[in-house]
């Protein structure tokens, strides 16, 4: 409980956000929207981290630092992913994930 808000609420919010992200990743065809789904997933994890940190271990900062590092990794991942997407677009003139099956069997 944090000033009237229970930990469970944060966690449920994070969970819903996470599975919405999963759903988006599984369904969307456009590579950029898939990337956005991944951002949603990362953010839901971040919410869980900070909520755990604040409510269960108020004297510590681990959750926050993890969140910082996750944000940094997300930034790196986004930049590389977008570079790849642009490269793909240059070659195939679209970024539909279903058409990217050159390396199947």
């Amino acid at each position, binding site marked *: 409980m944090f000033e009237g808000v229970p930990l469970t609420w944060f966690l449920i919010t994070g969970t819903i956000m996470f599975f919405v992200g*999963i759903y988006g*990743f*599984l*369904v969307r065809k456009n590579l950029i929207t898939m990337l956005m789904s991944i951002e949603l997933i990362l953010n839901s994890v971040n919410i869980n981290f900070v909520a755990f940190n604040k409510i269960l271990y108020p004297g510590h900062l681990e959750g926050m630092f993890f969140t910082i590092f996750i944000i940094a990794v997300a930034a790196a991942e986004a930049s590389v992913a977008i570079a790849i997407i642009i490269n793909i677009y240059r070659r195939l003139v679209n970024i539909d*994930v*279903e058409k*990217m*099956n*050159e*390396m*199947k*069997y």
Partner: protein
Amino acid sequence: MIDFSYTVLILLIPLVVFVVVGLFGNRFKPIVSGLVGTTGLFIGWVLSIFTAYNYFFVSGKGAEGAFVKVLAFSMRWLNLTDKLHIDMGVLLDPISVMMLIVITTVSFMVHLYSIGYMAGEKGFSRFFATLSLFSFSMLGLVVATNIFQMYIFWELVGVSSYLLIGFYYTKDSAVAASKKAFIVTRFADLGFLIGILMLSYATGTFDFIKLTAPDSPALTSGQGVWFLGLSTMTWSMIFIFMGGAGKSAMFPLHIWLPDAMEGPTPVSALIHAATMVVAGVYLVARLFPIYHMNAVALDVVMYVGAFSSIFAAVVACTQYDIKRVLAYSTMSQIGMMMFALGVSGYGGEEGLGFMASMFHLFTHAFFKALLFLGAGAIIHAVHSNVMQDMGGLRKHMPITHATFLIACLAIAGIPPLSGFFSKDEILAAGHMKSMFLFIVELTVSGLTAFYMFRLYYNIFWGKNTHYHHTPHEAPLTMTLPLMILALGALFAGLVPFASLVTSDGMPFETHIELGVAIPAVLAGLIGITIATLMYRKETNVPERIFNTLGGFSKAAFNKFYIDEVYLFITKKILFNYVSRPVAWFDRHIVDGAMNGMAYVTNEASDRVKKLQSGQVQQYALVFVSGALLLALLFIYLWTN
């Protein structure tokens, strides 16, 4: 006691020459390769003579006046277990020192001769490299300290023989001959290997000194009856003799030797007359104390030797290729050596046959090498191997003629040439053992004289064949070895062998028994006389005799169809009833199983590969579902 460790050099020098000439021979001028090889062998020759002098006259004798075995050098080569190890080394005793002399002398002569004979040939350096390899292997064989070292060098000798027979590898017949020699001797060596394994299993040692000592384990262990009423030791000796018979071209493993004459003639002189083919004799002599204790094995040696000698002598009378005549003659003479070993006893005068065998080996090396080198000079001049193309050559090639005549007289056993003495000892030893075999060997000497002079007259006398260009005497590098070897053929018989090389090292006295010597000389003279009458002038007498004998002479001309028998056995029986079913089994069962496995895998993966659709989202779906199922499993279903 003199330190004999320098004898390692006799082995190492040819090896170094082989490596140097083999690797860099193509960059030298051909003559340089020849000179390097010849120089190497010359050093080896000098060292061998020095060793022989030191061994026989300075320090070879032990306390009791007998020659002892000297371990000049030994190193542990393969350490299998504490007890079982394979050594490499140099063992000096009367027979190995005698063999050192024979090998280095003939090899040196052949090297010298080859410089002239092979001049201008393609592969001149290769020839000398292989010749050095052969010399190294043969020397290693005779100085082997244990039977396994001997086996290794035995195979090396076989390889170099193979390489040299197939020297003209663009010629189909040479390739076939080299393969034949290799396969036949390999087959015989299988017996040798089995014999080695049985011997070492029974006695627990490879070492010659231990094996041939008076308290040898070979004399006590393995004596129980094992198979067909013979003991393990007897069987192992028979198997080892099989290897020796293969290398020494004893009947029925002789079929490779006549074909081996496809090699260059100096090779025939060195390998297929003087050195390698007597390796079998040497092997039996080396293990003689054990053979002597196994009478059946020794009888096998005796009968095989006697039969081979008469068989080859008969065939030699009908052949027209001069090298083949010499090949069969070699086989016959080696048969006599084997025979002499077979009739020999052990120790002192009992060991007369042993001494005679070694003596004949020694003298035979000189006159047979001389005959081959002479034949080489003739072939060099006439460009043909066949007698019909020759005749009247004595005017064109005086030196060759003289030396060839000396060799013919020596091999015919005319006193006082070398062949007389050694052959006389063999006959004396045979006479002590069995009258029948004595007469057989006497016939062989008569036949030997006959076919050698048939050869001689056909080449040097007879019709005056018209040649395309007049045959000329060979160059000095070829005639010099002929003359040196002729000296050997003349005087080698004067060596007091009985006081140097004996079965147990104890010297003894020999004297010429007139009861043996007179029939022997008479047999030789009769052979020569008949040959003179038949071939001195060109007549049709030989043809009429040939036709009178009908089937027999035809069979002899066709080498008694031994080759055909082999072909029948291999082609008709082995190929049809063994190889074909095996090939069928291999093609259908073994390959079938493999192909079936490949087919099943292929089919299965064809079905399964659709799973890998290339759709990332499908993969992700499977991954998420799996993770969730695992979570469900671990959180709710697998509690406690």
